[in-house]
């Protein structure tokens, strides 16, 4: 993909982000914070590339450290969100 394609995708994604976040109900703003935290760990993709690569051992260890940190976030973030969301219940009748 060339730069302008990536840039177009980015600009449109910003519009989507703007609309989708405003559509989140205020009652779920705390889970929103934790789930965005979890998904921002998609940076793990970069970490995996670094840790998979042969060549520079420093780079590899940095990558592995990043994998650990991102994994904490991914598992922690999704799990704590799930825990919170499970608490939101309708009146039982």
């Amino acid at each position, binding site marked *: 993909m060339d*730069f302008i394609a990536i840039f177009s*995708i*980015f600009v449109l*994604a910003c519009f989507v*982000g703007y609309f*989708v976040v*405003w559509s*989140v*109900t*205020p*009652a*779920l*703003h*705390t*889970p929103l*914070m*934790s*789930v*965005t*935290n979890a*998904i*921002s760990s*998609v*940076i*793990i*993709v*970069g970490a*995996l*590339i*670094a*840790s*998979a*690569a042969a*060549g*520079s051992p420093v*780079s*590899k260890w*940095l*990558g*592995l*450290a990043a994998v650990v*940190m991102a*994994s*904490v*976030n991914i598992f*922690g*973030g*999704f*799990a*704590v*969100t*799930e825990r*919170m*969301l499970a*608490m*939101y*219940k*309708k*009146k*039982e009748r």
Partner: protein
Amino acid sequence: MHELAPINPWVALAYLVAGICFILALRGLSSPASSRRGNRFGMAGMAIAVVTTLLTHELANPVEVLGAIAVGGVIGLVMARRIAMTAMPQLVAAFHSLVGLAAVAVAAAAYLNPLAFGIADPSGQIFTVSRIEMGLGIAIGAITFSGSVIAFLKLNGNMSGAPIILPLRHLINLGTLAAILGLIAYFTLDQSPWVFWTVTALSFAIGFLLIIPIGGADMPVVVSMLNSYSGWAAAAMGFTLGNTAMIITGALVGASGAILSYIMCRAMNRSFVSVIAGGFGAETSAAAGGAKEQRPWKPGSADDAAFLMSQADTVIIVPGYGMAVAQAQHALREMGDLLKAEGVTVKYAIHPVAGRMPGHMNVLLAEASVPYDEVFELEDINNEFAQCDVAFVIGANDVTNPAAKTDKTSPIYGMPVLDVEKAKTVLFVKRSMGGVGYAGVDNDVFYMDQTMMLLGDAKKMTDDIVKALGSGGH
């Protein structure tokens, strides 16, 4: 402008699907009913992104990589299980610091081994665009890390919440920022290590410097802002790698943090710049403690409160930061159940910035199994106070302060507030007549005829009311 290496279209498609899953994850949060499905989409998206990466890059040592994931996963799951709901602000700050540090590590790894990332020509010369992206990525990541660490320490109480104000701080900060941007520009000409590592070091420093002068109470805005930054850091890495999933995520997270910061600032009627400039919370103790406290007010006991509420037709409960501090939500739910059993209509009114985090009260009430259809937002319930018998304000203050509607000199003037003063009777649970809330301003409602102050810890007071209601001694 260089062309990146053409990417296998199926791989690109997989990353696009992951990005769409993340959009659907946030979309699900538009209502509690669809929110859990949304979270599953988020997990699916992450799984797709990780598996795609693992399958398309030959792992030098699969055990190490999978081990790293496992170690991180276990730590994350344990933290998620153990954490108290009242500690969510801290947890989010802690998690952000990790995202920031991970971004730094990835950017550093990419700098040290650019060929593995496909961002350099065979001689090791990194592409110009990639240099900018990498420089921005490491700077934002480092700021996110060090800023979040300070935010965590302040929120967790390991560090005083008071703003620490250095002389000349605005000058120092602006100078440092300019140096960082200048060096990133220079980095496009000269990819020497000293440039890269100086940018990194300065960015760590500016993160500390920026956050230290901000008071503990303003930390939620900061955390949200850092959340936004972590998104932009991910997007910068996404540009470097031409990875749609990262770009979409970056935009989503960036927008989310920015919008939440905006919502908080608007509801506090403060400008974002004034929050970031810092210093708020330093003057508050001075602003409090004035002549007003000499005015007469009516104290009350748990028994009085139990009696009044059990005789009422409608009770509206207004929780605030004090309820979170005292962890009174479970006792409160019990109180509500007992009142409902006596035929009282019980509703909860939530101000958008009650507590210290957007949605803070909602998540605590949900934890205490209050059904979400009994919990109302400001616009939906505000005109019901005039008809209700009792407004039970527990640990809230600023969000009920009528000065926001009338007193142009008040620091909270212009912020929308809950009209508790219109209720026939107002019960106010807090620990003292001084020690006012976040904005440090006194509240006229304390001194009104129909107000009864229930001084004490929110949890203890609610427990006592529950006992009084349960014994039927009224």
